[in-house]
Protein backbone atom coordinates (compact mmCIF):
# COMPACT_ATOMS: atom_id res chain seq x y z
CA UNK A 1 0.00 0.00 0.00
CA UNK A 2 1.35 3.42 -0.90
CA UNK A 3 1.97 5.98 1.80
CA UNK A 4 -0.66 8.30 0.36
CA UNK A 5 -3.34 5.62 0.39
CA UNK A 6 -2.30 4.59 3.89
CA UNK A 7 -2.58 8.21 5.06
CA UNK A 8 -5.99 8.53 3.41
CA UNK A 9 -7.40 5.38 5.01
CA UNK A 10 -5.89 5.97 8.45
CA UNK A 11 -6.84 9.65 8.42
CA UNK A 12 -10.42 8.76 7.49
CA UNK A 13 -10.76 6.07 10.16
CA UNK A 14 -9.25 8.22 12.89
CA UNK A 15 -11.41 11.13 11.71
CA UNK A 16 -14.59 9.07 12.19
CA UNK A 17 -13.36 7.94 15.59
CA UNK A 18 -12.43 11.49 16.60
CA UNK A 19 -15.80 12.83 15.50
CA UNK A 20 -17.70 10.16 17.43
CA UNK A 21 -15.66 10.86 20.54
CA UNK A 22 -17.46 14.21 20.75
CA UNK A 23 -20.42 12.26 22.13
CA UNK A 24 -18.30 11.53 25.19
CA UNK A 25 -16.42 14.80 25.52
CA UNK A 26 -19.35 17.11 24.70
CA UNK A 27 -22.68 15.24 24.95
CA UNK A 28 -24.66 18.41 24.29
CA UNK A 29 -23.53 18.30 20.63
CA UNK A 30 -25.33 14.98 20.05
CA UNK A 31 -27.94 16.53 17.72
CA UNK A 32 -25.18 17.69 15.38
CA UNK A 33 -23.12 14.49 15.57
CA UNK A 34 -23.61 13.58 11.91
CA UNK A 35 -22.20 16.89 10.73
CA UNK A 36 -19.35 16.63 13.25
CA UNK A 37 -18.42 13.12 12.12
CA UNK A 38 -18.59 14.10 8.43
CA UNK A 39 -16.47 17.18 9.04
CA UNK A 40 -13.96 15.29 11.14
CA UNK A 41 -13.75 12.50 8.56
CA UNK A 42 -13.24 14.95 5.74
CA UNK A 43 -10.49 16.66 7.74
CA UNK A 44 -8.88 13.27 8.43
CA UNK A 45 -8.97 12.32 4.75
CA UNK A 46 -7.42 15.57 3.58
CA UNK A 47 -4.75 15.60 6.29
CA UNK A 48 -4.08 11.89 5.67
CA UNK A 49 -3.49 12.41 1.94
CA UNK A 50 -1.22 15.41 2.51
CA UNK A 51 0.75 13.71 5.26
CA UNK A 52 1.05 10.56 3.14
CA UNK A 53 2.30 12.61 0.23
CA UNK A 54 4.80 14.32 2.53
CA UNK A 55 6.03 10.89 3.65
CA UNK A 56 6.62 9.94 0.02
CA UNK A 57 8.90 12.91 -0.40
CA UNK A 58 10.56 13.22 3.00
CA UNK A 59 11.94 10.27 4.93
CA UNK A 60 12.13 11.45 8.53
CA UNK A 61 10.07 10.16 11.44
CA UNK A 62 10.32 13.36 13.55
CA UNK A 63 9.52 15.57 10.55
CA UNK A 64 6.62 13.33 9.54
CA UNK A 65 5.12 13.47 13.03
CA UNK A 66 5.65 17.24 13.24
CA UNK A 67 4.09 17.79 9.79
CA UNK A 68 1.06 15.69 10.72
CA UNK A 69 0.68 17.54 14.00
CA UNK A 70 0.93 21.03 12.50
CA UNK A 71 -1.27 20.29 9.49
CA UNK A 72 -3.91 18.65 11.62
CA UNK A 73 -3.85 21.53 14.09
CA UNK A 74 -4.31 23.97 11.24
CA UNK A 75 -7.30 22.09 9.81
CA UNK A 76 -8.76 21.58 13.27
CA UNK A 77 -8.47 25.31 13.85
CA UNK A 78 -10.53 25.99 10.72
CA UNK A 79 -13.26 23.76 12.11
CA UNK A 80 -12.99 25.03 15.67
CA UNK A 81 -13.19 28.60 14.43
CA UNK A 82 -16.82 27.89 13.38
CA UNK A 83 -18.98 28.55 16.46
CA UNK A 84 -21.69 26.18 17.63
CA UNK A 85 -24.78 27.44 15.71
CA UNK A 86 -27.01 27.07 18.78
CA UNK A 87 -24.82 28.28 21.62
CA UNK A 88 -22.31 30.38 19.63
CA UNK A 89 -19.58 28.69 21.64
CA UNK A 90 -16.16 27.74 20.24
CA UNK A 91 -14.56 24.36 21.02
CA UNK A 92 -10.93 25.17 20.31
CA UNK A 93 -9.34 22.87 22.90
CA UNK A 94 -11.78 20.01 22.37
CA UNK A 95 -11.24 19.96 18.63
CA UNK A 96 -7.67 21.10 18.12
CA UNK A 97 -5.73 19.16 20.75
CA UNK A 98 -7.02 15.63 20.03
CA UNK A 99 -7.17 16.39 16.30
CA UNK A 100 -3.53 17.47 16.35
CA UNK A 101 -2.44 14.27 18.04
CA UNK A 102 -4.34 12.17 15.50
CA UNK A 103 -2.44 14.02 12.76
CA UNK A 104 0.79 13.11 14.51
CA UNK A 105 -0.32 9.46 14.59
CA UNK A 106 -0.99 9.54 10.84
CA UNK A 107 2.42 11.22 10.39
CA UNK A 108 4.08 8.40 12.31
CA UNK A 109 2.24 5.65 10.46
CA UNK A 110 2.97 7.04 7.00
CA UNK A 111 6.66 7.39 7.79
CA UNK A 112 6.94 3.97 9.35
CA UNK A 113 4.73 1.98 7.01
CA UNK A 114 3.52 2.10 3.42
CA UNK A 115 5.55 1.84 0.26
CA UNK A 116 7.54 4.72 -1.12
CA UNK A 117 7.55 4.72 -4.94
CA UNK A 118 10.80 3.50 -6.44
CA UNK A 119 12.57 5.93 -8.74
CA UNK A 120 12.15 5.16 -12.42
CA UNK A 121 15.18 3.63 -14.11
CA UNK A 122 16.14 3.50 -17.75
Amino acid sequence: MSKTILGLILGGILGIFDGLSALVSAPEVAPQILGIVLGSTFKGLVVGVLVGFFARKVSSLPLGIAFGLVLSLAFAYLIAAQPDPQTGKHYYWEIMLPGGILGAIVGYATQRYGVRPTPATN
Partner: protein
Amino acid sequence: MKGLSDATLGHLGEVADWPDLSSTKYEAASVLGRGGMATVYLAHDRDLGREVAIKVIRLPEPAPEIAERLRQEARILAQLEHPGLVPVHDLGTLPDGRVFYVMKRVRGRRLDEHLRDERALSARLRLFERVCETVSFAHAHGVIHRDLKPENVMVGPFGEVLVLDWGVAKLSGDGDAAGPASGLVPGPPTTAHGTVVGTPGFMSPEQARGQPVDARADVFALGRILESMLADHGGPDAEGPARVPRPLASILAKALAPEPDQRYPGAREVGEDVARYLSGQRVLAHRESVFEVLGRLATKYKTPLALIIAYVLMRAALLFWRGR
Protein backbone atom coordinates in the same frame (compact mmCIF):
# COMPACT_ATOMS: atom_id res chain seq x y z
CA MET B 1 83.24 -12.60 22.82
CA LYS B 2 80.03 -10.73 23.40
CA GLY B 3 76.80 -12.61 22.51
CA LEU B 4 74.08 -11.21 20.30
CA SER B 5 71.17 -9.53 22.03
CA ASP B 6 67.59 -10.82 21.71
CA ALA B 7 66.66 -7.78 19.64
CA THR B 8 69.50 -8.45 17.23
CA LEU B 9 68.59 -12.10 16.97
CA GLY B 10 64.98 -11.18 16.37
CA HIS B 11 65.97 -8.78 13.65
CA LEU B 12 68.22 -11.36 12.00
CA GLY B 13 65.41 -13.89 12.13
CA GLU B 14 63.05 -11.40 10.53
CA VAL B 15 65.51 -10.60 7.76
CA ALA B 16 66.12 -14.29 7.12
CA ASP B 17 62.39 -14.89 6.95
CA TRP B 18 61.84 -12.00 4.55
CA PRO B 19 60.55 -13.57 1.32
CA ASP B 20 62.51 -13.36 -1.89
CA LEU B 21 59.88 -12.03 -4.27
CA SER B 22 62.31 -11.19 -7.07
CA SER B 23 60.79 -13.84 -9.30
CA THR B 24 57.34 -12.29 -8.90
CA LYS B 25 55.84 -8.94 -9.77
CA TYR B 26 55.54 -8.09 -6.08
CA GLU B 27 57.84 -6.18 -3.77
CA ALA B 28 57.49 -6.68 -0.04
CA ALA B 29 57.46 -3.44 1.94
CA SER B 30 56.65 -4.24 5.55
CA VAL B 31 55.14 -6.82 7.86
CA LEU B 32 51.39 -6.48 8.41
CA GLY B 33 50.99 -9.36 10.80
CA ARG B 34 52.28 -12.72 11.92
CA GLY B 35 50.30 -15.86 12.47
CA GLY B 36 51.18 -19.31 13.66
CA MET B 37 52.25 -20.60 10.27
CA ALA B 38 52.57 -17.56 8.05
CA THR B 39 53.47 -13.90 7.89
CA VAL B 40 51.44 -11.33 6.02
CA TYR B 41 53.45 -8.65 4.22
CA LEU B 42 52.39 -5.40 2.73
CA ALA B 43 53.66 -5.47 -0.83
CA HIS B 44 53.55 -3.48 -4.02
CA ASP B 45 52.25 -4.93 -7.26
CA ARG B 46 54.64 -3.45 -9.81
CA ASP B 47 52.48 -4.26 -12.83
CA LEU B 48 49.23 -2.87 -11.54
CA GLY B 49 50.77 -0.24 -9.28
CA ARG B 50 48.73 -1.09 -6.23
CA GLU B 51 49.25 -2.26 -2.69
CA VAL B 52 48.49 -5.87 -1.92
CA ALA B 53 48.95 -8.19 1.03
CA ILE B 54 51.02 -11.35 0.63
CA LYS B 55 50.74 -14.25 2.98
CA VAL B 56 53.89 -16.34 3.05
CA ILE B 57 54.65 -19.43 5.10
CA ARG B 58 57.10 -18.57 7.84
CA LEU B 59 59.03 -21.77 8.14
CA PRO B 60 62.16 -21.91 5.99
CA GLU B 61 61.42 -25.51 5.09
CA PRO B 62 57.68 -25.80 5.33
CA ALA B 63 56.06 -29.08 6.10
CA PRO B 64 54.00 -30.29 3.13
CA GLU B 65 50.76 -30.17 5.11
CA ILE B 66 51.37 -26.54 6.07
CA ALA B 67 51.99 -25.62 2.43
CA GLU B 68 48.87 -27.50 1.41
CA ARG B 69 46.89 -25.74 4.11
CA LEU B 70 47.93 -22.34 2.76
CA ARG B 71 47.08 -23.42 -0.79
CA GLN B 72 43.70 -24.62 0.38
CA GLU B 73 43.07 -21.37 2.24
CA ALA B 74 43.84 -19.45 -0.94
CA ARG B 75 41.61 -21.72 -3.05
CA ILE B 76 38.73 -21.46 -0.62
CA LEU B 77 38.97 -17.68 -0.43
CA ALA B 78 39.34 -17.40 -4.20
CA GLN B 79 36.15 -19.33 -4.79
CA LEU B 80 34.06 -17.67 -2.10
CA GLU B 81 33.16 -14.23 -3.39
CA HIS B 82 31.55 -12.23 -0.64
CA PRO B 83 31.98 -8.68 0.73
CA GLY B 84 32.97 -10.21 4.05
CA LEU B 85 35.87 -12.17 2.56
CA VAL B 86 39.20 -10.85 1.33
CA PRO B 87 39.58 -11.37 -2.43
CA VAL B 88 42.56 -13.50 -3.47
CA HIS B 89 44.50 -12.36 -6.55
CA ASP B 90 47.29 -14.88 -6.93
CA LEU B 91 48.80 -18.09 -5.57
CA GLY B 92 52.35 -19.28 -6.09
CA THR B 93 55.57 -20.76 -4.77
CA LEU B 94 58.77 -18.83 -4.05
CA PRO B 95 62.20 -20.07 -5.21
CA ASP B 96 62.87 -21.27 -1.66
CA GLY B 97 59.80 -23.50 -1.85
CA ARG B 98 57.57 -21.41 0.33
CA VAL B 99 53.95 -21.15 -0.77
CA PHE B 100 52.41 -17.70 -0.85
CA TYR B 101 49.19 -16.10 -1.94
CA VAL B 102 48.34 -12.54 -2.77
CA MET B 103 45.19 -10.85 -1.60
CA LYS B 104 43.64 -7.44 -1.44
CA ARG B 105 45.21 -5.23 1.18
CA VAL B 106 42.50 -4.51 3.75
CA ARG B 107 42.53 -1.69 6.23
CA GLY B 108 40.86 -1.69 9.58
CA ARG B 109 41.13 -2.95 13.11
CA ARG B 110 40.66 -6.33 14.67
CA LEU B 111 37.23 -6.82 16.19
CA ASP B 112 38.60 -7.07 19.73
CA GLU B 113 40.36 -3.72 19.25
CA HIS B 114 37.33 -2.15 17.62
CA LEU B 115 35.09 -3.18 20.52
CA ARG B 116 37.15 -1.09 22.94
CA ASP B 117 35.74 2.01 21.28
CA GLU B 118 32.37 0.66 20.23
CA ARG B 119 30.36 0.18 23.41
CA ALA B 120 26.80 0.50 22.11
CA LEU B 121 25.07 -2.87 22.21
CA SER B 122 23.06 -2.37 19.02
CA ALA B 123 26.17 -1.38 17.03
CA ARG B 124 28.02 -4.40 18.35
CA LEU B 125 25.15 -6.71 17.47
CA ARG B 126 25.01 -5.33 13.94
CA LEU B 127 28.68 -6.15 13.56
CA PHE B 128 28.00 -9.61 14.85
CA GLU B 129 25.21 -10.02 12.32
CA ARG B 130 27.67 -9.20 9.55
CA VAL B 131 30.11 -11.81 10.86
CA CYS B 132 27.28 -14.36 10.87
CA GLU B 133 26.33 -13.42 7.30
CA THR B 134 29.86 -14.09 6.07
CA VAL B 135 30.24 -17.34 7.96
CA SER B 136 26.78 -18.38 6.81
CA PHE B 137 27.85 -17.76 3.22
CA ALA B 138 30.83 -20.02 3.77
CA HIS B 139 28.64 -22.67 5.38
CA ALA B 140 26.31 -22.54 2.39
CA HIS B 141 29.34 -23.39 0.26
CA GLY B 142 30.35 -26.23 2.52
CA VAL B 143 33.21 -24.39 4.24
CA ILE B 144 33.72 -24.45 7.99
CA HIS B 145 36.11 -21.85 9.37
CA ARG B 146 37.10 -23.73 12.57
CA ASP B 147 39.03 -20.81 14.05
CA LEU B 148 36.55 -17.99 14.51
CA LYS B 149 37.56 -15.48 17.17
CA PRO B 150 37.56 -11.68 17.48
CA GLU B 151 41.20 -11.56 16.36
CA ASN B 152 40.17 -13.11 13.03
CA VAL B 153 37.53 -10.52 12.29
CA MET B 154 38.48 -7.14 10.89
CA VAL B 155 36.31 -4.04 10.98
CA GLY B 156 37.04 -1.51 8.27
CA PRO B 157 36.90 2.26 8.53
CA PHE B 158 33.41 2.32 6.99
CA GLY B 159 32.05 -0.44 9.19
CA GLU B 160 32.76 -3.22 6.71
CA VAL B 161 33.34 -6.57 8.36
CA LEU B 162 35.83 -9.12 7.06
CA VAL B 163 36.35 -12.63 8.36
CA LEU B 164 40.02 -13.53 8.05
CA ASP B 165 42.37 -16.44 8.50
CA TRP B 166 40.77 -19.39 6.79
CA GLY B 167 43.98 -21.35 7.24
CA VAL B 168 42.35 -24.21 9.10
CA ALA B 169 39.04 -24.02 7.24
CA LYS B 170 37.53 -27.27 6.20
CA LEU B 171 35.63 -28.19 3.08
CA SER B 172 32.71 -30.58 3.04
CA GLY B 173 34.01 -33.89 1.90
CA ASP B 174 37.39 -33.47 3.55
CA GLY B 175 36.47 -36.39 5.68
CA ASP B 176 35.45 -34.93 8.97
CA ALA B 177 33.21 -32.10 7.86
CA ALA B 178 29.54 -32.61 7.22
CA GLY B 179 28.48 -29.34 5.73
CA PRO B 180 26.17 -28.91 2.77
CA ALA B 181 27.34 -29.70 -0.72
CA SER B 182 28.99 -26.86 -2.60
CA GLY B 183 30.63 -26.05 -5.87
CA LEU B 184 34.02 -26.10 -4.19
CA VAL B 185 36.24 -29.05 -4.88
CA PRO B 186 37.66 -30.53 -1.70
CA GLY B 187 41.41 -30.84 -1.71
CA PRO B 188 43.37 -33.46 0.15
CA PRO B 189 42.74 -33.44 3.90
CA THR B 190 45.06 -31.00 5.64
CA THR B 191 44.36 -32.27 9.11
CA ALA B 192 44.40 -35.86 10.14
CA HIS B 193 41.41 -37.31 11.97
CA GLY B 194 41.84 -36.57 15.67
CA THR B 195 44.01 -33.51 15.08
CA VAL B 196 42.94 -30.54 17.17
CA VAL B 197 42.92 -27.23 15.30
CA GLY B 198 41.51 -23.93 16.48
CA THR B 199 41.90 -21.65 19.45
CA PRO B 200 41.28 -22.79 23.01
CA GLY B 201 38.37 -20.91 24.47
CA PHE B 202 36.68 -20.59 21.09
CA MET B 203 36.73 -24.24 20.10
CA SER B 204 33.58 -26.27 20.52
CA PRO B 205 33.85 -29.24 22.88
CA GLU B 206 33.81 -31.73 19.99
CA GLN B 207 36.52 -29.76 18.17
CA ALA B 208 38.66 -29.67 21.29
CA ARG B 209 38.34 -33.44 21.54
CA GLY B 210 39.49 -33.83 17.94
CA GLN B 211 36.15 -35.27 16.88
CA PRO B 212 34.47 -34.61 13.52
CA VAL B 213 33.03 -31.12 13.30
CA ASP B 214 30.46 -29.40 11.13
CA ALA B 215 28.96 -25.92 10.88
CA ARG B 216 27.82 -26.14 14.49
CA ALA B 217 31.45 -25.90 15.62
CA ASP B 218 31.51 -22.44 14.03
CA VAL B 219 28.21 -21.69 15.76
CA PHE B 220 29.91 -22.38 19.07
CA ALA B 221 32.78 -20.03 18.20
CA LEU B 222 30.25 -17.39 17.11
CA GLY B 223 28.64 -17.81 20.51
CA ARG B 224 32.00 -17.10 22.12
CA ILE B 225 32.42 -13.99 19.96
CA LEU B 226 28.92 -12.84 20.92
CA GLU B 227 29.75 -13.50 24.55
CA SER B 228 32.82 -11.26 24.29
CA MET B 229 30.68 -8.56 22.67
CA LEU B 230 28.11 -8.72 25.44
CA ALA B 231 30.67 -8.83 28.22
CA ASP B 232 31.36 -5.12 28.50
CA HIS B 233 28.76 -3.39 26.40
CA GLY B 234 27.21 -0.14 27.55
CA GLY B 235 28.67 3.25 28.25
CA PRO B 236 32.41 3.71 28.61
CA ASP B 237 31.89 4.52 32.28
CA ALA B 238 29.71 1.52 32.98
CA GLU B 239 30.74 -0.19 36.17
CA GLY B 240 30.51 -3.86 36.93
CA PRO B 241 29.30 -6.56 34.58
CA ALA B 242 26.84 -5.29 31.97
CA ARG B 243 23.36 -6.75 32.11
CA VAL B 244 22.69 -9.06 29.21
CA PRO B 245 19.08 -8.92 27.98
CA ARG B 246 17.37 -12.27 28.47
CA PRO B 247 16.68 -12.96 24.78
CA LEU B 248 20.38 -12.44 24.04
CA ALA B 249 21.31 -14.66 26.95
CA SER B 250 19.10 -17.35 25.41
CA ILE B 251 20.78 -16.92 22.00
CA LEU B 252 24.11 -17.24 23.74
CA ALA B 253 23.05 -20.35 25.63
CA LYS B 254 21.78 -22.01 22.45
CA ALA B 255 24.93 -21.16 20.49
CA LEU B 256 27.17 -22.38 23.31
CA ALA B 257 25.28 -25.57 24.07
CA PRO B 258 27.79 -28.37 24.80
CA GLU B 259 25.99 -30.76 22.47
CA PRO B 260 25.99 -29.81 18.77
CA ASP B 261 22.40 -31.02 18.39
CA GLN B 262 21.25 -28.40 20.88
CA ARG B 263 22.92 -25.54 19.00
CA TYR B 264 21.73 -23.54 16.02
CA PRO B 265 22.26 -25.59 12.87
CA GLY B 266 24.38 -22.86 11.24
CA ALA B 267 25.60 -19.27 11.34
CA ARG B 268 22.59 -18.03 9.37
CA GLU B 269 20.21 -19.05 12.14
CA VAL B 270 22.32 -17.33 14.81
CA GLY B 271 22.45 -14.13 12.76
CA GLU B 272 18.73 -14.25 12.09
CA ASP B 273 17.91 -14.59 15.78
CA VAL B 274 20.15 -11.62 16.61
CA ALA B 275 18.45 -9.65 13.80
CA ARG B 276 15.08 -10.53 15.32
CA TYR B 277 16.24 -9.16 18.66
CA LEU B 278 17.45 -5.96 17.02
CA SER B 279 14.17 -5.38 15.20
CA GLY B 280 12.05 -6.03 18.28
CA GLN B 281 10.78 -9.41 17.10
CA ARG B 282 10.53 -12.57 19.12
CA VAL B 283 13.82 -14.43 19.40
CA LEU B 284 13.34 -18.10 18.54
CA ALA B 285 15.79 -19.29 21.18
CA HIS B 286 13.87 -17.57 23.94
CA ARG B 287 10.50 -18.48 25.44
CA GLU B 288 8.96 -15.17 26.47
CA SER B 289 6.70 -14.53 29.43
CA VAL B 290 3.57 -12.39 28.94
CA PHE B 291 5.34 -9.45 30.57
CA GLU B 292 8.30 -9.83 28.26
CA VAL B 293 6.00 -9.88 25.23
CA LEU B 294 4.28 -6.71 26.44
CA GLY B 295 7.60 -5.06 27.23
CA ARG B 296 9.02 -5.95 23.83
CA LEU B 297 5.96 -4.67 21.97
CA ALA B 298 5.90 -1.51 24.08
CA THR B 299 9.55 -0.89 23.23
CA LYS B 300 9.04 -1.64 19.56
CA TYR B 301 5.96 0.55 19.23
CA LYS B 302 6.84 3.19 21.78
CA THR B 303 6.14 6.15 19.51
CA PRO B 304 2.61 5.22 18.37
CA LEU B 305 1.88 4.00 21.89
CA ALA B 306 2.96 7.35 23.31
CA LEU B 307 0.79 9.16 20.75
CA ILE B 308 -2.27 7.02 21.52
CA ILE B 309 -1.76 7.47 25.26
CA ALA B 310 -1.39 11.22 24.68
CA TYR B 311 -4.67 11.23 22.77
CA VAL B 312 -6.53 9.30 25.45
CA LEU B 313 -5.04 11.47 28.21
CA MET B 314 -6.02 14.57 26.26
CA ARG B 315 -9.58 13.36 25.99
CA ALA B 316 -9.66 12.46 29.68
CA ALA B 317 -8.22 15.84 30.66
CA LEU B 318 -10.83 17.65 28.55
CA LEU B 319 -13.61 15.61 30.16
CA PHE B 320 -12.26 16.42 33.59
CA TRP B 321 -11.91 20.09 32.72
CA ARG B 322 -15.50 20.27 31.40
CA GLY B 323 -16.80 18.40 34.46
CA ARG B 324 -15.43 21.01 36.89
